């Protein structure tokens, strides 16, 4: 008979209607966003950031350009730092990521041999400007390694263990001698200003 199937379907919707009042835990599935926030999973990845240890100066990145070349949409732009003699230093002078282009694939993190770039948990990045505001520079990208330890403790533990096994301590120490000093002098003006 025409109608029983309709009634059966209507019983389902009525059940859900009632359930939403008497047992909202099951009956309501939405999250009231700005007030409530769903906890992101540890592996959640959204936009890369650079890691430093201690001071922002002491970043792990050595400007090897691997991530920039592997990045599928090519959103990373690196210029290594040069000292007074024009020799290339193991440190980026410019490290820009265009968040407007980045597609959160996480390949930069996977290919980085120095554990210097990781995916963040940041997802509230609304901006008025499409081009300039979403172009993140080195200063915006740098975050302490503690931040990484906080958002992804498991990965942090694993990576630190392999790093310790390999005997890497912080950033690869510059060769003793001339290079560190010009690098420091070069870095100091922006630090004071």
């Amino acid at each position, binding site marked *: 008979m*025409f*109608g*029983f*199937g*309709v009634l*059966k*379907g209507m*019983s*389902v*919707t009525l059940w*859900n209607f009632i359930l939403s009042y008497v047992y909202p835990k099951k009956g309501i*599935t939405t999250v009231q966003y700005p007030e409530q926030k769903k906890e*992101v*999973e*540890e*592996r*959640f*990845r959204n936009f890369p950031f650079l890691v430093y240890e201690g001071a922002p100066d002491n970043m792990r990145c050595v400007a090897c350009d*691997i991530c920039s*070349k*592997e*990045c*599928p949409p090519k959103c990373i732009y690196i210029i290594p730092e040069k000292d007074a003699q024009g020799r290339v230093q193991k440190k980026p002078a410019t490290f820009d990521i265009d968040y407007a282009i980045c*597609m*959160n*694939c*996480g*390949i930069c993190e*996977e*290919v980085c041999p120095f554990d210097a770039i990781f*995916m963040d948990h940041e997802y509230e990045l609304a901006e008025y400007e499409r081009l300039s505001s979403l172009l993140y520079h080195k200063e915006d990208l740098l975050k302490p390694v503690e931040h990484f330890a906080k958002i992804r403790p*498991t990965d942090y533990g694993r990576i630190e263990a392999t790093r310790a096994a390999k005997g890497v301590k912080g950033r690869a120490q510059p060769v003793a001698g001339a290079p560190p000093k010009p690098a420091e002098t070069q870095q100091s003006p922006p630090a004071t200003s």
Partner: protein
Amino acid sequence: MSDTAVHSQEPQLLEVSIGPQHPSTHGVFRMNVVLDGETIVKLKPVMGYLHRNHEQLAENMSYLASMPYTDRLDYICSMTNNFAYAMAVEKLAGIDVPERAQYIRVLMAELTRLINHTLLVGFLLNDLGAFFTPTLYAFREREKILDFFEATAGSRMMCNYFRFGGVKADLPAGGMEQVKEIVKNYSRFLDEFERLLTSNEILRSRCQNVGILSKELAVNASITGPILRASGVNYDIRKVDKYSIYDRFEFKVPLGKVGDVYDRYYVRILEMRESIKILQQLLKQMPEKGEILSAKGAAAAKSPRMWKPPAGDAYGRIESPKGELGFYLVSDGSPKPYRYHVRPPSFINITILEDMCLGQKVADAIVILGSVDIVLGEVDR
């Protein structure tokens, strides 16, 4: 309309362009339809509004770098897209996949099938005119699976999870429990879904005997996936090719008899139930620990730009939720694929859209399109 047309005795045809901005063309798809009253006398699909030359992009970057782009083909089933691409590359380079990784892959693929079919049924009902209720129930259940994807792969939709020779990461702590919970509750949800829909007379009368696709035409037009099986052709690549470890699971291939929209709807429901069976067996069989990425694959994943598969060509295909998803790769021994071609199921499945729609009403055309299950990311690439 000109005055002469008004007074002529000829049947007056109305030419309507449905799409690209239309609520139910599932994206930016367009159908140029000629109507006699409400009956369709001609229908020409127009596509390409979302074309981004995926194939050429892939030919200009390393093999691995295309992996995140495959997520964006059929953005509902990124896991199966990854699966097909990984299969093709493994075939090309001869990479083996470790046992546990195989299980994880099948787990992901079947969960994706659940997502896709649930969502499709929801969207189909939207096309039928239901006010989002089935869609939102579908979303409700999908969220749970997406949570699991997020915990495992790091992203909800654009998973980028498969690697050549395995998967990116092992299941997280508590991941197995999460899947068990999903699998346990899913058939209960399907029961609820069916109570809401299957016996509904409006749905039945709207869907039955609408858009019939004959067995012969379906085979001849290279239709694959649930649409083909709804027409009664027993062809499931999981059974035919027995790729990955599908030969270890007991499951059936549901077949329709008429090949109309209703069969396509119901075959999908039945397929979901079979998927749940696969998942249940899988959870029992899955090894507790094991490698997830073979050594050869790990080398490819660590420095993709240096990794060079041997010259040759390979065609890898899987049964994606929408049909046969294949990747045809030609390598010239360089780190970039010389030719990279996607055989997208939804693109080929709309070949016969006109044949199915002729003589039906406008409303039916929408429903037929909905039942074919296209995703424009995949059609246009």
